[in-house]
């Protein structure tokens, strides 16, 4: 059994990639280990502050000056990651220490980038979790049982199975998957 534990950071619907990483920061090179760290520092810095860390809001995801967030599980509503195709967005979440995002639904390019880049596990949950989970609560995800437990409230929520992409997620990304299946030839 594989368990992932972390503190919840809760957001609303339609969290777009400009909110996840504002465009002015996109000048940093993802390929440079030092510059890549900047993305952690600015992760979710474009979220309007009253919607940042629901239900109360007004909580920055990353403390100013830090590169890591104390929240490793991001909980969102519908259409998470809509907008730009910038892969800087899932990278920013990963660099801030996010291991899992759970949303009611995703925009497809963000979802695909998260899966193919192997940055974190993007789970879907049919329940609208922003109504059920509060920022700072302790969560536990059982990846074998596709189950989310809120350790603070003892509530449990079923997660949708990863389905088609589970093999890519398990491999750690599209390249790892393709190597395993001998697909990198031309």
């Amino acid at each position, binding site marked *: 059994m594989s368990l992932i534990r972390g503190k919840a950071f809760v957001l609303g619907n339609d969290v777009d990639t400009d909110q996840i990483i504002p465009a002015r920061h996109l000048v940093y090179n993802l*390929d440079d280990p030092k510059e890549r760290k900047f993305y952690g520092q600015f992760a979710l810095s474009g979220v309007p502050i009253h919607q940042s860390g629901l239900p109360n809001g007004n909580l920055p995801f990353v403390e100013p000056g830090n590169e890591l967030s104390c929240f490793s599980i991001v909980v969102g509503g519908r259409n998470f990651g809509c907008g730009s195709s910038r892969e800087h967005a899932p990278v920013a979440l990963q660099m801030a220490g996010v291991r899992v995002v759970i949303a009611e639904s995703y925009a497809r390019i963000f979802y695909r980038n998260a899966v193919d880049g192997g940055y974190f596990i993007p789970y879907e949950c049919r329940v609208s979790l922003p109504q059920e989970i509060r920022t700072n609560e302790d969560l536990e995800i059982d990846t074998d049982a596709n189950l989310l437990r809120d350790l603070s409230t003892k509530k449990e929520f079923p997660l949708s199975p990863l389905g088609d992409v589970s093999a890519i997620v398990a491999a750690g990304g599209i390249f790892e998957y393709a190597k395993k299946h001998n697909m*990198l030839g031309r």
Partner: protein
Amino acid sequence: MTLTEKIIAEHAGRPSVRPGENVWIRVDVLMTHDVCGPGTIGIFKNQFGADAKVWDPFKVALIPDHYIFTKDRHAMRNLEILRAFAKEQRLPYMYDADSPWYKGVCHVALAEEGFTVPGQTLFGTDSHTCTAGAFGEFATGIGNTDAAFIMGTGRIWVKVPETLRFILEGTLPDFVTAKDVILRIIGDIGADGATYRAMEFEGDGIRTMDMEERMTLCNMAIEAGGKNGIIAADEKTVAFVKAHTDKAFTTPASDPDAAFAGTVKYRARDLEPVVAKPFSPANVAPARSLKDVKLDQCYIGSCTGGKLEDLKAAARVLAGGRVRTRTVVVPATVSVAHALSIEQIRGRTLKRIFEDAGAKIGPPSCAACLGGPPDTFGRLNGSEVCLSTTNRNFPGRMGSPDSQTYLASPLTVAASALKGRITDPRDVL
């Protein structure tokens, strides 16, 4: 099969595909730019080796367009990375900033340079790559990892999308444009109304549109979550494509018995000028209902609203008038910028019309459509309110986190510039 299914099947080397299937397909063109190119190149080299070669140098287009006219040293460094890669890989299609080949906004440049071809597949590291669906091809946005995978292999996996069909019956009334049509559709189906689906547009209202209007329509498919927007090629498409490339192509179309996930019909005569309010392209209202909204800036530009026909439309409204709020014009490409000095309305060039009206013309690029570095032309400051011909109005999208962006057609933005507040263009002309 639908048009999208046919193109995917053909590129998967299969007689047919069904929605929901995952298939590996051939890629005809890969496009990247200065924001996502460096990351893509990094992954490509890490995965395929420092000496690896791209799968086909004639199928890769490097079109820097985002952060060109800035002093930001990291942005300049990113251009250097593209430049070095183009040289090392001997890529013939590098439209370098600071060179005679510089183009400007990638989606418009792709069409100008003959990369948009019916029946083909085009992938780009930009969500508005769906613009090219206007030419009857499968075109969609991807991230760096997928782009790097394509760079090395010429292949990628796709999940075959279901197709939603939108039929526009009749000809659009005066002052109602493709931008109004797509905003209305997004408003009706929502910002995730087409998630994972193809959006196919058809009907006589589409056939009467020129290629640039069709590009505007497909451009914003992503704003409804669409995987791609697509319009089957007709004689206008064929004429445009033949004028820009000598590549051979076919012109597939959806079968009469194709299965669609849904069909929505619009009567063109029922449509009117609309505006998307902050902070979602789906937050749509009639322009006439927003007359109280005072504007600090009017912005005319981008892949959505900075093409030549967009600027002509804006100039028709501004001709002879004076703007009452800061108004900036950003031609999408160098060709569009050149045309401003050539195209005339009643004996005056478009450039002259914009300048006489008090609008300021900037150099061709994505500019403030997505905010960008602090010295970006047209970027919003403080709590400014902007009406823009661009495609997104998310919080902070055009710069300052406290700014607000409304979206509309070039006609509506130009009419509003003359009044200093949101104005239905029918009230001005």
